[in-house]
C-alpha cells in the first residue's frame, strides 16, 4: 500500500465512504459465516452474542431465522 494512495483516499470522501461500505459488507458476510459455524458447533446464542459484543436478543433477531 503506497502512501500516496492512502493520502488520496483520505482526501476524497467518496473513496473513503466506498471503502467503509465495502468493509461493512465484508464484515457482515464473515459474521454470518462465523455465526452459522458457531451454531453448527453447538454454541448457544448467548455465547455467540457475548463474543460479538451484542445482546443475545440482537444476535438471535439477526440470525435466529436464517441459521
Amino acid at each position: 500500500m503506497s502512501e500516496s494512495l492512502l493520502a488520496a483516499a483520505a482526501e476524497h470522501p467518496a473513496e473513503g465512504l466506498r471503502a467503509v461500505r465495502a468493509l461493512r459488507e465484508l464484515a457482515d458476510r464473515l459474521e454470518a459465516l462465523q455465526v452459522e459455524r458457531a451454531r453448527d458447533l453447538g454454541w448457544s446464542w448467548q455465547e455467540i452474542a457475548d463474543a460479538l459484543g451484542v445482546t443475545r436478543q440482537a444476535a438471535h433477531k439477526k440470525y435466529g431465522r436464517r441459521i
Partner: protein
Amino acid sequence: MFERFSKDARAAVVDAQQVAHETGSRTVDGRHLLAALASGDGAAAQALRTVGVDPSALADSLRAELRAGGLDAGALASLGVDLDAVRARADAVFGEGALERGTGRGRRGHIPFTPDAKKTLELALRETVRLGSPAIEGGHLLLGVLRATGSPAEAALRAALAGAGTDGPALRVALEEQQRRAS
C-alpha cells in the same frame, strides 16, 4: 400495480427474485430485473438482440457482478485489506466460495425490492401509459431500467449498449417498434 402486469412482466419480476436468491443478494435491485429480462425470451431480450447486445452475455455479467456484491476489492485495497487473502482464508474455514455464497440458508423467503427497483417499476408503468399499452410488458420494464438514471442497472445497461456500439435511444426505438408491431 401488479394487476396491470402481463404474464411476461410478472415472470420477469418473479425471475428477478430468483436471480437474487441465486446470487446471494439481500435485496432485489434493477440489475436483478435486468438480468431476468435478458435471460427471458420476451420483447426485452429481442430488442437487446436487435440493437446488437447479446442478452445472455449481459445476464451472465450481471450475475457475476451481483455474486461479488459489495465485495469491492479496489475499495478494500485502499484500506490495506487484501480481499484475495480474506477469500482464501474463508474458503479454507467455510468451504470453497463461502464468501460469495453467504451462509446459503435463510434466503428462501421474499427478498425486498430496493427503492431504485420500485422506481424502475413506476417508470415502466409511466412508459406503458405513455405508449398507450393495455398492460405492462417486459419491454416496458426494460424502458423503465433505461429511464432509472443513475441506478446500477441503468449503468450496466448503458455499458452493454456502448459495448455493442449503440445507445439508449436506439434501444428505445427498437422497443417502440416492437410495440407497434404487436398492437
